[in-house]
């Protein structure tokens, strides 16, 4: 079993200084990485299409920061933040988005398929709702192995349209599994208001399945983090699954390049007026951190992303023959992750 490994920042439940800075740094990394990606995409440097989580960084950072080594995570199409917060290395991340051989998926997956078994990241997913059954199974494995690990899955408010999501809620409850289902409610399902697609509140569905449910302001990273930590504490002691709804805002279009004509006048401006990264920066200042420390951190992250982008852009291309030889895992060899 290789599910374990390094994480970007030490994960702790206490709120020491390094911890708070580490948490903030996670958000910063996501912000800088995706801001860079937005430009690169516009410049036609990134193949395919990408869904940015700008505005939603606090959810990814807050949830993943509360996890422990060996926990597992399944994500969705808007998964850059989840991957980075979970500790996927920044250079392998960018190499993948550029489609390079050094990418975490060797250039075969791209934005919607970032996975990194060394940090328990079981994969972003191009299929809406696709991560939930996978996370259910991962939680089942934790439970059967009698470990105190948890499985976490991120999904959007629009994913409630998919039946399998409801199947998973039922089975997680029925089997009392350590599964934390994190709904990132940004109000949108692609080009539509989720309220035009989904008639149920997730909290009411949770109630119907007798699953403990919490809702937090997903732009407050500390609230997200502490609520996740609390819920995971319960999960680790065999108290069954939980659902966490994080109210958040989508700054950009559904995908980059989306002209967003469907978005009402001023809506995007309202959304971007809530900046979870800036909010946390203000909190840190309020806590007594000095601006210079934070400026330095910001600059360092920015420089790191810039350096990584330059390296990734020039990464080696993947070999077709290697890819073709990798459709199956060879029968001889390790059978496990």
């Amino acid at each position, binding site marked *: 079993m290789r599910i374990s490994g390094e994480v970007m920042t030490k994960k702790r439940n206490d709120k020491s200084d390094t911890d708070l800075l580490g948490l903030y740094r996670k958000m910063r990394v996501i912000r800088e990485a995706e801001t860079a990606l937005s430009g690169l995409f516009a410049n036609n440097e990134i193949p*395919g299409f990408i869904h940015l989580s700008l505005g939603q960084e606090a959810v990814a950072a807050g949830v993943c920061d509360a996890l422990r080594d060996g926990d597992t995570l399944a994500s969705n199409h808007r998964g850059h933040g989840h991957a980075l917060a979970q500790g996927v290395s920044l250079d392998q991340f960018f190499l993948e988005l550029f489609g390079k051989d050094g990418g975490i998926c060797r250039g075969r997956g791209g934005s919607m398929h970032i996975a990194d078994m060394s940090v328990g990241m079981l994969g972003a997913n191009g299929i809406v709702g696709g991560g939930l059954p996978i996370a259910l199974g991962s939680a089942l494995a934790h439970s059967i192995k009698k470990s105190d690990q948890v499985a976490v899955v991120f999904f959007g408010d629009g994913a409630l349209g998919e039946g399998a999501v409801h199947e998973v809620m039922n089975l997680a409850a029925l089997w009392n599994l350590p599964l934390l289902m994190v709904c990132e409610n940004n109000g949108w399902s692609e080009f539509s208001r989720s309220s035009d697609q989904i008639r149920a509140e997730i909290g009411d569905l949770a109630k119907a399945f007798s699953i403990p449910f919490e809702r937090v302001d997903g732009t407050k990273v500390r609230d997200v983090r502490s609520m996740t930590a609390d819920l995971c504490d319960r999960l680790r002691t065999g108290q069954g699954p939980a659902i966490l709804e994080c109210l958040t805002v989508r700054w950009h279009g559904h995908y980059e390049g989306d002209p967003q004509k469907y978005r009402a006048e001023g809506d995007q401006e309202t959304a971007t007026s809530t900046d979870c990264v800036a909010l946390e920066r203000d909190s840190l200042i309020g806590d007594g951190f000095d601006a210079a420390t934070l400026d330095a951190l910001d600059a360092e992250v920015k420089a790191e992303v810039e350096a990584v982008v330059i390296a990734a852009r020039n990464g080696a291309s993947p070999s077709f023959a290697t890819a073709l030889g990798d459709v199956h895992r060879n029968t001889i060899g390790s059978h496990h992750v």
Partner: protein
Amino acid sequence: MSDTRYGRAITRALNDAMEADPSVIVMGEDIGAVGGPFGVTRGLQKSFGSERVRDTSISEAAIVGAAVGAAMTGLKPVVEIMFMDFTTFTMDALVNQAAKAHFMFGGQVSVPMVLRTPHGGGINAGPQHSQCLEAWFAHVPGLKLVCPSNPADAYGLMRAAIDDPNPVIFVENKAMYGTPGKLADDPEPVEIGKARRARAGSDVTLVAYGAMVAEAIAAAEVLSAEGVEAEVLDLRSLQPWDKDQVLASLSETHRMVIVHEAGVEFGIGAEIAAHVADAGFDELDAPVLRVGAPHMPVPFSRELEAEYRPNANKIADAVRRVMQ
């Protein structure tokens, strides 16, 4: 005649069908105001309202199942599944319900519905947004299956699909939505089950569909310079497919190469080759070759995807092999 594009021709077919028949409705995810991510339904909701041009939740299984029930109750639903990869969610509704109802209920009812969906690569959409899964549907009795290669056929096949009393899977090629072409002012339906001779030739028959028709023609031009004249047949319909025309061409050329973007193994081309190896055996002067994708998921990166997809070069190489 007017200029159009592959995607716009489909839009027009939907529009014309909705105008001609109030029982035609269109459903799918974000197909209304925005017209879907590829814009194929753009403008329809404005013309026909949100009852008949209906946005749905992300519920492919229920939407396609609902199309079956709506069709049984007198509507003619056209459902968009945003990427063919997501038809994985619709298999029960299509295979166990739509395809079988007419037969299984003793001929009492028909299920006049169309499922539109784009397949194929070319835009680096990666392994879950690029698949060509049409072989699955061709194997299912009760379903019809078409895949146009140009705007005029896209229009004509869509009209025929909507008119057909049976469930029809209408496969679009997402890399072709912008492909230009001509459309008659008063365009006609294209009969399902009939191939089209896209290029005349006497030395070898190239059987293709969808995006590979243009590649086959390009290969034929190259080969022509080498003294080999390839006939190119555009299948247009995959279930039923035009056995007669394929065999007739073979009996002129005695050589055949079958081309599709989908994976070769257990793909559409396998049936055509197998049929030819039976009914056309005596006409064959060379092995039947197939050109298609290798047996691997569609890779993301530009280089990998480019090498993954079949193209005129690979087709020409295959023809050179059968001409030896």
